[in-house]
């Protein structure tokens, strides 16, 4: 109990708009082999427990955890699935280690979004089956409603949202993992087809395929196995109102609660000072702004102007989504949060190549499960 937990290995496959040469199992295997090699562990003898994150309707398979163990080296081992985001999976791994019953845990998340031909319809089936779904609205109307109310309450402008998209698309150009990097100017992010006014398509992320595996270890094991462990200082998660009828549209209190939980574990009183860089959810450009405010990394209504002023650029005071985020890397469905934790680990280790941030020692990754959910998680990592 309460032993510290470290990330001792990471591996990934992708990210690409399509990946026809690999089955989902082979995609996961590629990420797993890299992660175990990075951690220096044999999954058959040295990993005590395995966690995967997946949702049945995304996989097109009921009880998807059936198809998880083989390619992770987890057959006849403790394996379970969390139908949540990758950061929920990481938090689960942290809990397993903290019980003292598991010492090394592998956590996997993946996306084969290209294989889902009817993703909007499947997302519609996450709406309330009686109250909302019969209206037959594309689920992105929910993002439109939220974006409008957020802009109304905070005075955030469409241009400020566009600045997020431009920054993230450009950041992605320096990230070899990113599938959607582009040398955009503001006009690129302000024009194009509408999705659900005021949300336009250029401010919404496109999907990508990929897989990520992270190996966690107890402090005792980490010190033996790794010469550069990255410590999990805190992990928090929270659900808000699931129904559209009872949620607050202009704020995301569940992200604030998740962050408070993580900050409390990490002993952080002043996140603006403590957090050196952040990878936050930007499924839609406005969400990055909303999330930065909910995380307490800037004041309410300030994120838009601070973004315009360059605070969140890679050379700014608080680099946000140096990876390119979901807008630049591609949205990895429930692996999205995991791709952000991976980026934080690479940055902290100094392995981020052309996008390496200078002198960072503590970073934050945050996820949101997308419309129509009010579900998110926060992980804080440090050298």
């Amino acid at each position, binding site marked *: 109990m309460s032993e510290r937990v470290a990330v001792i290995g990471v591996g990934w496959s992708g990210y690409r708009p399509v990946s026809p040469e690999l089955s989902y199992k082979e995609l996961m295997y590629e990420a797993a082999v890299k992660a175990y090699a990075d951690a220096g562990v044999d999954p058959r003898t040295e990993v005590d427990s395995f966690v995967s994150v997946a949702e049945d309707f995304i996989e097109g398979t009921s009880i998807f955890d059936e198809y998880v163990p083989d390619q992770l080296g987890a057959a006849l081992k403790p394996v379970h699935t969390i139908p949540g985001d990758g950061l929920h999976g990481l938090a689960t791994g942290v809990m397993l280690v*903290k019980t003292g019953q598991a010492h090394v845990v592998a956590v996997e998340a993946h996306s084969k979004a290209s294989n889902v031909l009817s993703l909007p319809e499947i997302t519609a089936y996450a709406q309330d089956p009686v109250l909302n779904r019969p209206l037959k609205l594309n689920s992105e109307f929910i993002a439109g409603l939220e974006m409008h109310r957020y802009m109304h309450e905070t005075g955030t402008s469409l241009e400020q949202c566009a600045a997020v998209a431009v920054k993230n698309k450009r950041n992605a150009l320096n990230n070899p993992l990113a599938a959607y990097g582009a040398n955009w100017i503001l006009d690129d992010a302000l024009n194009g087809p509408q999705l659900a006014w005021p949300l336009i398509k250029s401010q919404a992320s496109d999907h990508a395929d990929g897989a990520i595996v992270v190996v966690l270890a107890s402090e005792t094991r980490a010190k033996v196995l790794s010469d550069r462990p990255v410590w999990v200082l805190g992990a928090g998660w929270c659900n808000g109102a699931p129904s559209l009828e009872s949620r607050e549209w202009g704020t995301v209190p569940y992200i604030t609660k998740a962050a408070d939980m993580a900050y409390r574990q990490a002993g952080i009183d002043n996140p603006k000072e403590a957090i050196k860089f952040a990878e936050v959810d930007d499924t839609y450009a406005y969400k990055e702004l909303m999330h930065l405010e909910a995380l307490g990394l800037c004041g309410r209504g300030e994120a838009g102007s601070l973004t315009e002023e360059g605070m969140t650029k890679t050379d700014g005071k608080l680099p946000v989504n140096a990876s390119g985020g979901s807008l630049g890397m591609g949205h990895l469905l429930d692996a999205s949060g995991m791709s952000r934790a991976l980026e934080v680990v690479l940055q902290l280790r100094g392995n981020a190549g052309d996008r390496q941030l200078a002198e960072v020692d503590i970073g934050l990754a945050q996820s949101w499960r997308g419309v129509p959910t009010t579900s998110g998680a926060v992980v804080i990592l440090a050298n």
Partner: protein
Amino acid sequence: MGMRKVAVVGAGMTRFVRRALETPKELAWQATRMALNSCEMTLDDIDAVCMGTAPDAFDSVHMKGEYLSDGAGAWGKPYMRSYVGGGTGVFAPIQGWYHVASGMFDTCLVVCEEKMSSYFPHAQAAFNTIFDHTTERALLPNLLWIFALEMNRYMNAYGISKEDIARVAVKNKRNAADHPCALLGDPDITVDDVLNSELLAWPVNRLDVSPVSDGAVTIVLAAEEVAKRITDKPIWIQGVGWSLDTAYWANRDLAYPTYVEYAARMAYEMAGVKEPRKEINIVEPYDPFDYKECHHLEGLQLADKGGAPQLVADGVTLRTGNMPVCPSGGLLGVGNPIAAAGLMKVAELFWQLRGEAGARQVPGQPKRGLAQAWGDLMQVGTVVIMGTEPGGEVAR
């Protein structure tokens, strides 16, 4: 450093019915409210919520865990759903256990809900999608196939007869006659009734199978120091174990559930149980089909390989026998709302070990019980061991 001890302090359940008026959220709420009332707690006392529910395909609700969250009392709380197919009902309490044992939370709700009746015309069709989409689904398999294939292999390997196995269904449906929530309790059922029921998929007859149902079960978990404030009869989680075998189910021997053995050994080690046949007083193994109870008793090391049917024939597994098995009535008798049915077994141990099981009470003041579930492609075992004393070994 010693492991943080975790206790069950409250439990609640709905009736298991063929088709419930209540929505999935309402079923979850009813069981949760009853569980909180049973230990005089409110949602304000709850730090986190864990959800167990089986395939989204039953409800055709994508991200069903998110949909159920407010019914489960998770609004504004840390909330996660865990998932191992049919094993989920006994995995969710393991998930609750690690929430509390990790030191992250002092109290945790574990809610399992299932509404199988929404699927039209029959929930079984949803099971087609559990098979491999490329190599198996095109053969149009149904869930009965894999049970029938496994049962036939088991009978053939050990020379077990249909009569031997039918006795399990008789015992459990009779036991269920004493359960106020049961769908299929029957005090007068006979072996002939089972053998003469409609043949579905030889060797499986209709009464060899548990019925699809709607229902929900909730338990409340608390850390040691909190549990002792809430109740003077906490029931301790002494050991947990789980194991998932390869997805290539046609590449293994179906006569023996190795994954159940591995899960059980993990739980026994944690609970400090060295001789399970002497130290486990009540068993609630997973019995969606009658032969599975035998199969699982063997995997749990509570019977020799091929020897479980003899224990049933000898009356050892009766409620009044030396090793009562499924005193609740099990899935065969109480019903099988998948995840809720697994958690019902854990709730049954809670009531039995507290001496509160009424007409179902096992005599002799049992000290320790084991609940087990199974799922996926004959692939996963989940085990929880509970007792009246904290027990358990210190962490490695």
